[in-house]
């Protein structure tokens, strides 16, 4: 917020081989992450992969089964939440049902005995930012889902803490509001300089907002990278398919006759990386077409492997039709089929082979 002084710049967070188990269930498994001070880190991963659990451990709401957590260089592993000086938006909002919207938002300020005028000033600003101005007197039970989520958001950002944790804070907002909020949150974070850890299942959010993305899979770290790197150089087939909608197409190398000598590799190509090219290297047949507005998503097949291509909506495709597709060799991704590791060294070789 303009004019508001950062209450202290962000603090770095370090997770050192942190695990969390419930009986048999391993929710988080030996996770080590470095979150630099003032950075915006997105936690990304499929449902149930341990994002919320990780966040809750940072917040001190969940016990750590093993490993250590450091905030600002201090070991806070056993420290209660109240002493960690951070803010959080809960996936389930966790609004106080007996307090009205305004009281919910300024709850933390009251706890910290921030003066009344200061409180009112900040509340007005946050309410304005989140479009809650008309609703300040309502009880949470009288709000729509999205409105509740905004109240939760307001409660987290009003405190201007050095660390802010958000668990899917925008999942119930419509696209427009979501886009606005994304911009606002990012701006706020950069302006105040706090450290943000942001759980989301929406990669657009992760990619547009984050400085670094932490990709989790089944409680394990899959990849940490900048959004661009994650998109352009996914380290594993999982990362490759997880990031990008529709997901990257993966072909066994022998789906292409020219590569049948290299069956131990998987080739990746994003749907938007392929385009219609008469005489292109990929000769596919269209199975189905999904209308997306600006484009269509064509479900195609080559040598028994299904894949998707984003094609301009301006041309009409019918199922059964056969299309020829091309791509630039730079857009190719190669993975070792056994280890699952990326093989950048092979890209140009394979690309050349295919286009030959």
């Amino acid at each position, binding site marked *: 917020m303009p004019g508001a002084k950062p209450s202290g710049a962000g603090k770095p967070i370090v997770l050192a081989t942190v695990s969390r188990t419930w009986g048999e269930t391993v929710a988080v498994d030996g996770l080590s992450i470095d979150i630099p001070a003032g950075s915006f880190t997105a936690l990304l991963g499929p449902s149930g992969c341990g994002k919320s659990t990780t966040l809750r451990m940072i917040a001190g709401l969940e016990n750590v089964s093993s490993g250590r957590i450091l905030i600002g260089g201090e070991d806070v*592993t*056993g*420290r*209660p939440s109240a*002493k960690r000086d951070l803010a959080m938006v809960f996936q*389930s909002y966790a609004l106080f049902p007996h307090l009205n919207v305004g009281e919910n938002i300024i709850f933390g300020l009251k706890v910290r005995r921030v003066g009344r005028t200061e409180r009112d000033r900040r509340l007005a600003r946050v309410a304005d930012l989140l479009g809650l101005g008309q609703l300040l007197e309502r009880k949470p039970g009288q709000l729509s889902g999205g409105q509740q989520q905004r109240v939760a958001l307001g409660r987290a950002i009003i405190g201007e803490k050095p660390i802010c944790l958000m668990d899917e804070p925008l999942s119930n907002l419509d696209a427009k509001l979501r886009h606005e909020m994304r911009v606002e949150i990012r701006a706020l974070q950069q302006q105040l300089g706090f450290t943000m850890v942001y759980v989301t299942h929406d990669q657009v959010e992760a990619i547009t907002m984050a400085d670094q993305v932490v990709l989790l899979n089944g409680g394990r770290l899959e990849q940490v990278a900048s959004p661009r790197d994650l998109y352009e150089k996914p380290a594993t087939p999982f990362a490759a398919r997880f990031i990008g909608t529709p997901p990257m197409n993966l072909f066994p190398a022998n789906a292409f006759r020219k590569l049948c000598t290299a069956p131990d590799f998987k080739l990746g190509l994003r749907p938007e990386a392929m385009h219609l090219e008469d005489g292109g290297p990929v000769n596919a047949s269209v199975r189905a077409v999904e209308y997306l507005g600006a484009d269509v998503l064509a479900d195609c097949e080559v040598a028994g492997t299904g894949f998707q291509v984003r094609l301009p909506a301006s041309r009409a495709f019918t199922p059964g039709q056969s299309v020829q597709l091309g791509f630039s060799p730079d857009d190719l991704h190669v993975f070792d089929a056994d280890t699952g590791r990326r093989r950048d060294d092979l890209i140009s070789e394979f690309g050349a082979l295919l286009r030959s």
Partner: protein
Amino acid sequence: MTGAGFSFDRVLNTFAAWALALLWVLPLAYAIWTAFHPAAYEARFELLAPLTLDNFVKAWDAAPFARYFLNTFLLVSMILAGQFFLGTLAAFAFARFQFPGRNILFTLVLLQLLVMPDILMVENYQTMRMLNLVDTIPAIALPYIASGFGIFLLRQTFMTIPKELDEAARIEGASVLGVLWRVYIPLAKPTYLAYGLVSVSHHWNNFLWPLIVTNSVDTRPVTVGLSIFSAIDSGVEWSVINAATLMTSGPLLIAFLLFQRQFVQSFMRAGIK
């Protein structure tokens, strides 16, 4: 693992909780002390005082306790079943339905909390005689079966249950009673346990009305046996009274020890995560 301030707070709380607990358990502790020692040690607390079971023998011999226990057991089961049944239905009506006369009827329920049943003893005795129930266990139970306390308690609990769960069940096609049975009752389990414990111990220990409305060994509850020792013309014999008390409320204490684990189990809290 925990920080210093944190644990200090903990220690202080633990200490206070224990101090209060010791204070609270004193009467029970005293009852146990006297019950297992000869009367001479009623007021003297020596570590090496001789132990004895005489007090229990004396108490047990004073009345046909085996039969009394059976009666009490039947009595409290009957009352509890009735109270749960009627209370649940009524509380549900008050908590989730709008109908004319609701406030008046609820006032009548609250009034029952105020009216002490003993005051109405003479009238109720007449009713029991009219129903030809004098000297039966149902006669002891009937006046307590509709409990204002229970209705009030369950209503308060039902009202805290999230409305959406009710809605979800109705969408799934559950009838009014289906919703009650499948959603409200399971979610109010801690309250039922609490109420059950309280109701059972209250009626287990109730004395005057059972004494008046019953005449025979076949219908009388344990408290009647116990009361023989509380008559004090010859001075209080704490050791025997306390032995009798422990003997009669022993089953309650044991039941509580068994149930308390369940009682504080956090099955509900996990749900609304």
